């Protein structure tokens, strides 16, 4: 059944682009929405045997038996939620039907690429689907074709090409040493030959490539420009799930399933995670562009995920995956709100905004929920995932990293309070008297994401048993 999650997006795009596609112009958006809902229902409702079964005709078409575990399911759910929200944002922000058709097709293709990454069980397939997602992302960022968008795309392409070269070189080196690219075979061989210089070189190259894809410091140069210049719906997709799937998820999968956990690798992850947390948070403090501030905030929050992974314990990995999911949700919510503010007011500069909470009450309220969750305020989802990460890092004997992570959370609170005050609270800025709340497409997106953020926070005892403990078992 899992194979269908790759084949369905492909079939949908082919079907939508048959010669009578003019009649299907509006259908592309609904196809995308249905695919997201189908995936979300499948992940939350389907019993385990469904994932391992495969319809006869599908197995004749593609012989592929993916390894579906708790981490895979969490990622598939995140992809469906963020994909759904990105499509609703596109419906709100792209008025022209033909452009919405093209955008929806590209989102469906990205959807297939990300599902492929999550379901891949060997390094080469992983690389192919990383490229699918990267190519669709380039086009989605450059979608409007203006100078800033092309500049952001160019930076992303150049750094992404460097990352691709590193990943491909690493795959070639690992193939030379082990004679295989499958995760299972690699794990067995790499555990026995972890001191081999070729293996070490390959691990360093893979890690560096994935750090670029994740937008971690010092490889983050492309991220603020790409997130800021991209169309609103692309920003939601990129910040919500694309960088998480191509970079962070892949890193978690390889560290837990392929590489033997080593103190050197853990130290590298801890340092990169901590530097990203601090640099991202401090850079976010100085921004006046709404989306740029959120982009730097993303770097900081991804740093927390890497910090949890660097703890090298089962609890740390569980916390990292939990924060990955939470961050997908609340960062998407913040970018959805940024899209609503930009579309309604025509401004992204926080100095030109102010007091719009009265005019846009739902956007203002959901923004408060998202920023409190990002800053780790109880009882929202972000608080629990950060708490688990900090406890895991502390228990692993890295108390100084844990203390710095707590301090950085205060910086997060500071820049989000500043954002909230400059954009939503205080006196209404001049020229915004006629401002109205965004249309239902965007309100539905914001409310769904806010409810997930609150729901996870309030239902943490249930989440702990059904979500976190199964993730711990992947180690």
């Amino acid at each position, binding site marked *: 059944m899992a194979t269908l999650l*790759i*084949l369905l*997006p*492909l079939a949908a*795009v*082919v079907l939508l682009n048959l010669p009578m596609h003019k009649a299907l112009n509006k259908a592309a958006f609904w196809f995308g929405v249905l695919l997201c809902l189908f995936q979300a229902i499948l992940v939350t409702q389907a019993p385990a045997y469904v994932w391992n079964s495969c319809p006869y005709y599908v197995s004749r*078409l*593609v*012989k*592929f038996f993916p390894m579906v575990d708790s981490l895979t399911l969490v990622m598939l759910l995140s992809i469906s939620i963020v994909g759904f929200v990105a499509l609703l944002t596109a419906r709100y922000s792209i008025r022209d039907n033909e*452009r919405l058709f*093209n955008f929806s*097709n*590209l989102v469906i*293709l990205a959807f*297939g*690429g990300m599902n*492929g990454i999550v379901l*891949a069980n060997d390094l*080469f*397939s992983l690389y*192919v*689907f990383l*490229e*699918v997602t990267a*190519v*669709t992302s*380039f*086009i989605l960022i*450059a*979608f*409007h*074709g203006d100078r800033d968008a092309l500049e952001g795309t160019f930076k992303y392409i150049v750094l992404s090409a460097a990352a691709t070269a590193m990943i491909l070189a690493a795959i070639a080196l690992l*193939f*030379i*040493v082990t*004679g295989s690219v499958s995760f299972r075979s690699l794990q067995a061989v790499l555990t026995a030959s972890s001191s081999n*210089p*070729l293996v070490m*070189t390959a691990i360093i190259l893979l890690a560096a490539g994935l750090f670029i894809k994740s937008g971690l410091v010092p490889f983050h140069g492309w991220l603020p420009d790409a997130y800021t210049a991209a169309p609103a719906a692309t920003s939601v997709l990129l910040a919500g799930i694309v960088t998480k799937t191509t970079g962070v998820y892949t890193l978690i999968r390889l560290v837990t399933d392929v590489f033997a956990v080593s103190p050197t690798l853990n130290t590298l992850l801890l340092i990169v995670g901590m530097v990203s947390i601090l640099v991202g948070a401090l850079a976010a403090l100085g921004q006046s562009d709404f989306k740029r501030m959120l982009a730097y905030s993303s770097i900081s929050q991804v740093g927390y995920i890497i910090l949890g992974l660097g703890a090298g314990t089962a609890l740390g990995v569980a916390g990292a995956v939990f924060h990955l999911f939470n961050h997908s949700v609340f960062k998407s919510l913040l970018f959805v709100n940024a899209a609503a503010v930009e579309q309604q007011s025509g401004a992204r500069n926080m100095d030109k905004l102010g007091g719009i909470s009265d005019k846009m009450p739902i956007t203002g309220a959901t923004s408060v929920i998202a920023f409190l969750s990002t800053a780790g305020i109880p009882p929202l989802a972000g608080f629990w995932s950060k708490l688990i990460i900090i406890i895991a890092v502390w228990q692993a004997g890295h108390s100084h990293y844990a203390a710095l992570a707590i301090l950085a959370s205060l910086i997060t609170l500071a820049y989000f309070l500043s954002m909230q005050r400059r954009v939503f609270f205080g006196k209404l800025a001049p020229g915004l008297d006629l401002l109205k709340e965004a249309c239902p497409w965007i309100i539905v997106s914001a409310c769904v994401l806010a409810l997930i953020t609150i729901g996870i926070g309030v239902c943490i005892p249930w989440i702990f048993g059904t979500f976190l403990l199964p993730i711990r078992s992947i180690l």
Partner: protein
Amino acid sequence: MTLDMTNMVLLMALLAAGVWTVMTSDLLRSAIGLAVTSVILTLLLFQLGGPMAAVFELSVCAGLITVVFISTISLTKPKTVEVRQAYKLRRLTRFAFLPLILILVGYYVSTSHVRLDQKVLPLPASVDVRYALWALRRLDLVGQILIILAGIFGVVVLFKTKNDGEEEKK
């Protein structure tokens, strides 16, 4: 000339063509340089006993990709003489770090006892490229179809935007 010597000459030619492709200031020359690089790589692949890989390299990279690049470049406007002069002066500075990287990699390879000939992986006679592609790596073909579709949408989206912009200017 021995086989090793031929390979060495081809490798040097490959490096020279690659460097020229990256460093030349003209986009068209760069595309042609890429095609030349692909042709030399094809010869190397033949030399090393990979005829199917060589055929793919020649047909796709040296042929198809070059045609796509040159078609796309033909749709762009050439740079003015002033811009080209300014660019010529600037462009070399951005490659200043390349010799440093080459020295560092060379030093690492020579001191870390890395042996790239660790394992020879002969494929069984029955496993040819067709079998590898259609039976072993069919999922990757699905991925490649997705990439091609994304590329088509890229051309549609970006070139349509360009045409719209030009029509608005008129």
